[in-house]
């Protein structure tokens, strides 16, 4: 026996479903943001309450800093060389090959160096952190830590956070340096650009402010990578699938946060630049 469904009640049901679904999405999003903010605040609170022990902090500094150096240096070198390849044809047509030093160096120190170092760190270190902490969560090692009177945030998150925060400026400087070297190598030795003009143009256009703004930006990227990755690891779903998802999410979310922060900090840095040097050249 099929009954005729009132079209008005069907529409009402559809609207109710729509409101309920969106309501759930909003509530879940707000809850997730709140939980993340609480996690960040607890990490900050523990960082200032009691400094982490040397034996927990040194391995993290080694993993984040020393072990990331080769991949960051390699990325920086190749990006510098690719920039030279991409820009040479354009600049040659205008007869401005000697300006390549300024463009490559500026692009690297203000933008590509910090962002690429951060993306490499998110991929190499962030995912590994999320997977490691996720496995510890799934196998109850984090519960074991808590049950023995150690605070898991103090023991596991604070050292990783400090390592990312303190090592990423060094990695960014390394990416900048290798990129500039790679760009110079390709421009001078492959395309035959005059080395003296290459450097003098780079020196004229790129100042300490530009280098420092990139390094400054990277500190925020490092903090975001550590927080996002540790949060994903701590809130990992059960099983191998959960650990895999935590690692993937940690990279994707870190990448999105890096891009958003890059834009916001870029706008803020430009505003600061304009207020200090109102007659200076506009960079953006």
């Amino acid at each position, binding site marked *: 026996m099929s009954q005729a469904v009132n079209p008005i009640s069907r529409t009402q049901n559809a609207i109710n479903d729509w409101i309920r679904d969106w309501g759930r999405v909003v509530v879940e999003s707000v809850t997730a943001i709140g939980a993340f903010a609480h996690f960040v605040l*607890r990490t900050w609170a*523990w960082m200032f*309450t009691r400094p982490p022990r040397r034996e927990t902090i040194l391995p993290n500094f080694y993993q984040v800093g020393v072990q990331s150096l080769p991949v960051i240096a390699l990325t920086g070198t190749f990006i510098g060389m690719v920039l030279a390849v991409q820009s040479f044809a354009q600049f040659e047509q205008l007869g401005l090959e000697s300006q390549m030093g300024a463009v490559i160096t500026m692009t690297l120190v203000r933008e590509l160096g910090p962002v690429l170092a951060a993306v490499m760190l998110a991929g190499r270190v962030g995912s590994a952190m999320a997977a490691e902490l996720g496995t*510890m969560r799934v*196998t*109850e*090692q984090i*519960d*074991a*830590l*808590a*049950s*023995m*009177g*150690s*605070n898991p*945030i103090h023991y596991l998150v604070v050292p990783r956070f400090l390592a990312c925060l303190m090592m990423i400026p060094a990695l960014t400087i390394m990416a900048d340096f290798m990129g500039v070297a790679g760009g110079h190598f390709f421009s001078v030795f492959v395309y035959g650009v005059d080395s003296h003009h290459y450097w003098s143009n780079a020196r004229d256009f790129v100042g300490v402010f530009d280098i420092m703004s990139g390094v400054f930006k990277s500190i925020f990227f490092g903090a975001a990578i550590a927080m996002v990755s540790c949060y994903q690891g701590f809130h990992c779903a059960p099983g191998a699938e959960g650990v895999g998802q935590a690692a993937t999410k940690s990279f994707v979310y870190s990448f999105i946060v890096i891009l958003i922060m890059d834009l916001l900090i870029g706008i803020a840095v430009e505003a600061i630049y304009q207020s200090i040097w109102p007659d200076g050249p506009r960079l953006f």
Partner: protein
Amino acid sequence: MAAEDDALVEVQRVSVQFGSQRILRDISLRIPRGQTVVLIGESGCGKSVLMKSIIGLVKPASGRVEFDKRDMHSLNDKELSRERKRFGFVFQNAALFDSMTVGQNVAFPLKQHAGYSHAQIEELVISKLAEVGLPRTVILKKPAELSGGMRKRVGLARALMLNPELVVYDEPTTGLDPIMSDVINELILRTRRNNPVTSIVVTHDMHTARKVADRVVMIYPLVRLDEGEDQVLYDGPPEEMDDCRDRRVRQFVHGEAGERLMEMSLEDTSV
């Protein structure tokens, strides 16, 4: 009455919920000092959740858990860390830190909380491992190189390192052969004999329950209970479990599937 007043753990009308799923409803339990309480019940009934809420790892939706008269869930991070030094927790799969050696695992609580020298820590680790029947040669091994029984014993040694007042065992014999299960049971008894500890053992191994319990508490899955029915089906000495009036308790104790077989056959016919 004196023992009643001297409760080390008091659980008062505790309910736990994960998302929309209710696990525990209004559970109350009083554990006097020195008693060994065995929590039994079928898989998924909430035994481990109850135990984790006792030591503050799971926050109840309502109710109160007192440890030595202090509400565990009103403590801040620092106070909770301090109280937890008074617990020893033996996890189902031992939960050893796989990045550390056995020696580092057992020494971990001492390094975190006690100001011992390196030599003192090494001596204490060796003696604690000997207590659970493990030779000093295991110290340099990684947890992955150990058998299940050895991992459980290392977990026990680690849990006992700070001489806790309350030792909690989560499924201590699950996954072990009968002989190793009995070794673990003997270790639980020996621990109680050697130290004045209160113990909570979560298990569905009736041999363990009969051997180590002063008191047995059986909880039942909430989804199988009627509204308003008490989730604790049995709370008494192990000797009286077999004669319990509740059919569900007898069924569990004797390992009988009962009406669950009916559920299976119904599912079969519906396919």
